[in-house]
């Protein structure tokens, strides 16, 4: 049985509000990976500081791409926060006038490195030791199943392995995005049901152990793109007669549900809109 490391990649724009998405994603990892709360707190704080640093120093004038890579090894959690700014000289000023943020990273991480990234920009590499040591064994990687990462567009794009990480991550990130897009608590709760259903669907329809999803949200509109799923899976989401009760709520609550063919299967596009309630003043 080959052991592959659970990995997550989050790509987003360095807007101040993106921090909420990063932290939501990290919170979504706690349960599936049985992370200790204290470790999770340290990772959240240090990664937030690294991202904050990118927002402020790497792209002082306008948002730029920001990437967070996590690898959950048995003994440690490794995180790399990367930007495409002017290099580490911009992102982490020289020792001596070190910011509180970077000092915090050094304090909380077992090891921390600040350096120029290969290909431009800067990266902060952090390693956190796991004290629990009872990491759940990841499923074996099916040979050749993990294809090239999909190119998706969105406010946040997450690529993860294995599929079992999806429920926690998708739900948390989608709901954080919905909160930013001024969803009412009503529709927000619906989104809870919808993301649960997508997770259940993914469990049975995922084409590979590596899944991606993109979230786009603005003005009471949230769009999710998830996949790849096995070709033809989407037909099971039809809200008519043959509907599977487990997935039907997804069909009934989402405003749009489309399966789009891609090279290695199909993607599920879900649109959730929060209409302004009739009784609004």
């Amino acid at each position, binding site marked *: 049985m080959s052991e592959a490391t659970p990995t997550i990649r989050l790509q987003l724009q360095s807007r101040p509000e993106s921090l909420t998405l990063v932290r939501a994603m990290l919170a979504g990892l706690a349960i599936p990976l049985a992370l200790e709360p204290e470790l999770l707190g340290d990772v959240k704080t240090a990664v937030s500081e690294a991202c904050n640093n990118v927002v402020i120093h790497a792209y002082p004038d306008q948002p730029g791409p920001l990437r967070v890579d996590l690898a959950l090894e048995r003994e440690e959690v490794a995180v790399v926060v990367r930007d495409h700014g002017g290099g580490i000289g911009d992102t982490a000023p020289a020792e001596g006038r070190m910011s509180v943020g970077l000092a915090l990273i050094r304090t909380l991480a077992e090891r921390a490195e600040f350096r120029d990234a290969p290909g431009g920009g800067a990266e902060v590499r952090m390693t956190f030791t796991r004290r629990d040591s009872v990491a759940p064994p990841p499923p074996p990687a099916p040979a050749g199943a993990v294809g090239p990462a999909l190119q998706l567009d969105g406010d946040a794009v997450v690529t993860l392995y294995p599929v079992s990480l999806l429920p926690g991550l998708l739900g948390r990130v989608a709901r954080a995005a919905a909160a930013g897009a001024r969803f*009412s*608590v009503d529709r927000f709760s619906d989104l809870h049901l919808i993301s649960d259903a997508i997770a259940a669907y993914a469990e049975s329809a995922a084409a590979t152990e590596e899944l991606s999803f993109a979230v786009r949200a603005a003005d009471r509109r949230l769009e999710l793109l998830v996949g790849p799923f096995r070709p033809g899976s989407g037909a099971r989401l039809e809200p008519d007669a043959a509907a599977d009760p487990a997935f039907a709520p997804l069909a009934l609550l989402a405003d749009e549900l489309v399966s789009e063919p891609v090279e290695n299967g199909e993607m599920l596009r879900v649109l959730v809109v929060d209409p302004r309630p009739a009784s609004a003043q």
Partner: protein
Amino acid sequence: MQTAARVDANELFVRWQKYGDQRASEELVTRYLPLARKLARRYTGAREPFADLIQVASLGLVKAMDRFDPERGTGFSSYAVPTIVGELKRYFRDLGWSVHVPRGAQEMALKVEEAQQELTSRSGRPPTINELAEFMELSVEDVLDALETAAAHHSVSLDAPRTDDEGDSTSLADMFGEEDERYELVDDTLTIEAAMRFLSARERRVVTLRFVEDLTQSQIAEEVGVSQMQVSRILRGALERLRELTRSRRQSERRRALSG
């Protein structure tokens, strides 16, 4: 202290540590308190008031000042940050908040639920997450966390005891008899309507109102006489059950396919 402000920090440390110079100590505190405040700010959340954490961080600062060795050549800040953070983390550990699901989180979930009802009755529409955060003077992230706690429910396993409409406590497995018969009951043409037989009367009502009548969760809450968050929990519980039932069906199909 205009003149002291220009004095090298290391000299202040010598004056404080070797000669007990109170003024040097005060000057050091004045200089580094902003650092302690910044660190305390990082750890402030819904359940940990800033004022408390400032105290903890200041304590860490004083500890660091006592122990710092200026001879070593590293700046005081890089020594003080780990000491202050260590103090903050110990404070959390002592309170037990970081160890298990805190009671504070449950209380916070309840408060969010109350705030939500208050805001709904004020404006006649369900609030947004931002409005909740503003009203409660919390961060959006704190409200999101509270909503996660509020939505959490134990997934209903088939062996979990449940109360039927008559108030008799049985397990779902009991209701269905032997395992294999259960699979017969849940036939291949199971639709939502069919699967609904396995829900309680209230669950059935809530599910119908949401999926068939297309009422919003707040409208259902009014109709049934519970809070919107309870509606949300009932729906999640019911859907989880439906999912388990269909999962059993898929497993039995797979088993049949294998044995046939």
